[in-house]
């Protein structure tokens, strides 16, 4: 398809594919991953049964592949191109677990700390994923890292809050162990109660990875009752912690959970395992506004938990001081769930209530006269790129930095903080970030032959196997998800569209024969007479007018014969390589984009 424009004037500026950000953005999953995990490459490695390499590639950016393969928030999946192609993203997270489960002996590929230290000492407060990542990145460089942790075990919320039926302790122990075994000086049972003292303790830098440790209170009438520490009203994250450390082993039969985020999901499913029979998760708003991940909601409902929408708590109902129920307003919402109307009141009876309405940051141990500035919401002022606070030697990351997020963000903060700490200790400006670079390698192996599997596989998303319901509640710690079978893995890896194998265009070679345009199965290519047009005016002239403004349009240099330009809408390309196969002059090539991500002390190392 060709389309018109105005002669004479210049066409819109050509896309700069030399900027790594362009091709990076095409790899939707990698772009969406806070740590930029090279998803398509690890999926191909799994497809080739090279699980150890797939694991190590993951570990390079996300540090905890076995943990994340079970628990990650998966921002990559809603971004996945496959979702736009057949409605379901590739099961990226579950494949990560396959790599971890089958990794075999990867010891040779794990980081090691040198015997000679560089003389710099770093303190980390808290042993959650953010601090552990800082240690992971700095120990191999010769830093001496000391972690202060108030609990008796490492892992942060991964240990204390993520229930063992989702994340078994041995899985956590193993990956955390790899880091600690490099010789981290970890001090358990050591709550830091003064930053001033810490700053005076001779460390070259301090990293705060203390999380968002306080569960939100619900101050409604009846909260205190006769007993301000009512043993039947629990703060979700504290309650989960008590289970993790063995202090709580039972709950009443009828349980109301207030809130419908991921914490609520863990609370209701834990209740089910501790004796709860009639468990209701009480939500203020309609279902489409829930914060919980859809797969967690599904699992909870499968386990018999009832999810009740449009109920806003009013008061705790007591009889003779004893908690007997909670009164709710039953509400009705407008379209955007911005305004509500109360329809009636109901009292739901219960034995226990669990409050799961969010977490707050708290820094009672940070003296306010130290010069560490705080902004709104009890959050410290922090540079989001360098993770540096207003005190040059104090860095912060994970939930402590910007409020409750997730593990993968904590890891990415840890990586960036480690780069900054390394700069700081070497007297390099922390703002001086090592650049992201890329490697491009042609995938051509011969005529119509590629070193990747370019055929589109119509397989649908493979379902996860779960432990039978009847067995789940016998023991608290039985993992529910059983992982993919070999068959499911083999099918699922073929669903990946290899978005990192890019269509790379060399305008001077094009003879405008239209072969690529004719063969493209998604009609995403057009040669346009674009003289005098702005990029925004190209849409209606394309073979398929673009529908997804989030995705880039590639615009080539003017073509030699007519001065028109090649335009590609990146949105629907399935990376099948047919354009490159049909091009008589090899103006299109399929090249593998390999983002070289820098870590502390290391420039980016591309994997291939």
């Amino acid at each position, binding site marked *: 398809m060709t389309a018109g424009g105005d002669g004479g004037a210049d066409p819109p500026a050509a896309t700069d594919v030399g900027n790594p950000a362009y091709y990076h953005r095409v790899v939707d999953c990698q772009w969406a991953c806070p740590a930029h995990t090279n998803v398509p490459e690890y999926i191909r490695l799994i497809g080739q049964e090279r699980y150890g390499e797939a694991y190590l590639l993951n570990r390079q950016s996300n540090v905890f592949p076995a943990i994340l393969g079970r628990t990650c928030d998966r921002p990559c999946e809603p971004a996945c191109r496959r979702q736009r*192609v057949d*409605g379901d993203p590739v099961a990226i997270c579950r494949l990560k677990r396959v790599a971890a489960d089958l990794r075999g002996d990867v010891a040779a590929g794990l980081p090691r700390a040198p015997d000679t230290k560089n003389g710099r000492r770093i303190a980390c407060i808290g042993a959650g994923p953010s601090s552990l990542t800082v240690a992971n990145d700095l120990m191999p460089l010769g830093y001496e890292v000391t972690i202060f942790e108030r609990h008796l075990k490492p892992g942060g919320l991964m240990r204390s809050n993520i229930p063992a039926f989702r994340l078994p302790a041995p899985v956590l122990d193993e990956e955390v162990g790899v880091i600690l075994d490099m010789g981290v000086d970890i001090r358990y049972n050591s709550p830091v109660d003064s930053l001033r003292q810490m700053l005076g303790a001779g460390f070259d830098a301090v990293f705060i990875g203390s999380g968002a440790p306080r569960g939100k209170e619900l101050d409604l009438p009846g909260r205190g009752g006769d007993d301000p520490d009512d043993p039947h009203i629990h703060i979700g994250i504290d309650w989960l912690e008590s289970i993790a450390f063995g202090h709580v082993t039972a709950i009443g039969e009828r349980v109301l959970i207030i809130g419908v985020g991921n914490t609520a999901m863990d609370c209701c499913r834990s209740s089910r395992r501790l004796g709860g029979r009639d468990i209701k998760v009480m939500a203020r708003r309609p279902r489409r506004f829930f914060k919980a991940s859809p797969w967690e909601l599904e699992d909870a409902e499968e386990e018999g938990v009832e999810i009740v929408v449009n109920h806003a708590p009013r008061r705790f109902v007591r009889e003779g001081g004893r908690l007997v129920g909670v009164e709710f307003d039953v509400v009705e919402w407008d379209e955007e769930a911005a305004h509500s109307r109360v329809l009636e009141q109901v009292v739901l009876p219960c034995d226990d209530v669990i409050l799961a309405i969010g977490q707050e940051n708290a820094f009672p141990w940070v003296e306010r006269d130290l010069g560490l500035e705080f902004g709104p919401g009890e959050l410290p002022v922090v540079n989001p790129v360098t993770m540096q606070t207003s005190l040059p030697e104090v860095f912060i990351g994970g939930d402590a930095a910007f409020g409750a997020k997730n593990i993968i963000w904590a890891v990415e903060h840890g990586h960036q903080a480690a780069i900054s700490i390394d700069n700081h200790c070497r007297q390099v400006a922390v703002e001086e970030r090592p650049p992201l670079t890329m490697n491009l390698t042609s995938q051509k192996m011969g005529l119509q032959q590629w070193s990747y599997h*370019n055929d589109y596989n119509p397989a649908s998303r493979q379902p996860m196997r779960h432990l039978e319901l009847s067995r789940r509640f016998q023991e608290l710690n039985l993992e529910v998800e059983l992982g993919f079978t070999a068959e499911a893995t083999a099918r699922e890896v073929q669903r990946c569209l290899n978005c990192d194998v890019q269509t790379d265009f060399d305008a001077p070679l094009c003879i405008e*024969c239209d072969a690529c345009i004719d063969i493209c199965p998604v009609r995403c290519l057009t040669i346009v007479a674009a003289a005098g047009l702005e990029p925004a005016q190209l849409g209606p002239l394309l073979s398929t007018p673009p529908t997804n403004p989030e995705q880039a349009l590639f615009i080539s240099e003017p073509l030699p014969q007519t001065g028109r330009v090649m335009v590609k809408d990146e949105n629907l390309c399935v990376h099948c390589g047919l354009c490159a*196969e049909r*091009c008589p002059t090899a103006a299109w090539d399929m090249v593998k984009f390999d983002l070289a991500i820098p870590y502390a002390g290391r420039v980016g190392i591309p994997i291939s």
Partner: protein
Amino acid sequence: MPSITKPLIPLLPLARNELGLTMQDYQGGMSTLCAGCGHDSITAALIQAFFELSLPPHMIAKLSGIGCSSKTPAYFASRAHGFNSVHGRMATIATGAGAANRELTLVGVSGDGDSLSIGLGNLAHAIRRNVNMAYLIENNGVYGLTKGQFSASADVGSRSRRGDSNLLQPVDPIMLGLSLGATFLARGFSGDKAQLVPILKAAVAHRGFALVDIISPCVQFNDHEGSTKSYRYMRDHELREIETDFIGQHEEIVGSLARDRATAVTMHDGARVQFRTVPEGYDPKDRGQVEAYLRERTGRGEIVTGLLFLDESQQDMHETALTPPNGLAQLPFSKLCPGSAELESFQDGLR
């Protein structure tokens, strides 16, 4: 041939035509032609034209001879009828098919060798008969399939890949058509679908013989320096002066068409062809004038493209031959073959 077949992508936003069909419903097998061959672009243009015309695939008959061009009916409309005839005989087979079943949309695909070398006689008589069909010559100036010998459309002085010059005069199918009384003559370029698709639609809609000469570079044997049928040569010498729009009988007429100097010609079924930005005074219905104009332009080394000549007033083969309105295929056997007694009496009449 590509390593994989063109995949079907489930969520692709697909346009549907009046029959509810998608472009994919007009596709055929994967092409085995050389990558970059102009013929493949013509295939894509045909698919688009069929789709836009909402032709029922099973009512299309694809006919061809021998050559790379003649292989292409395998690459579109796989649900249509097809006949791959011997070299140069497609026009004749098409005449028979049309006589037998006039309900079919006949689309002939041929090459310059198939039509202008070995098959010239057959083509000439199909033009004279005004067989109701669209007849495409995918013109690359060479016998592509047999490795690039000059064909009858090669220009004097055009050089082969080995460097020899062609010494023989070319047959220009448009000039030939004008002299034989053709009723629809157009020229297109495989590298310009914006122009080619409306021409193909008009050719299919034309009642009578629609000859479309399409310059279609052979990337393998005739796309080099010194060739007069290369992509580069066409881009330097094409005179896209007679732009064409085809407006189907039921299609909404959208803006932009009412340009200055546009000439509209209404076709038999009420569809219209708009000749846009035609040169001053150009009358696409005046055979003499068109011939003089083309002669002048060709003399200047220009290759004029567009729908060049159209005459809707002539009778087509069925009208001349007084064939029954529903075609021979619909006649009961007793009428088609009335038996020996009837033959006897007929022969008696001749004695």
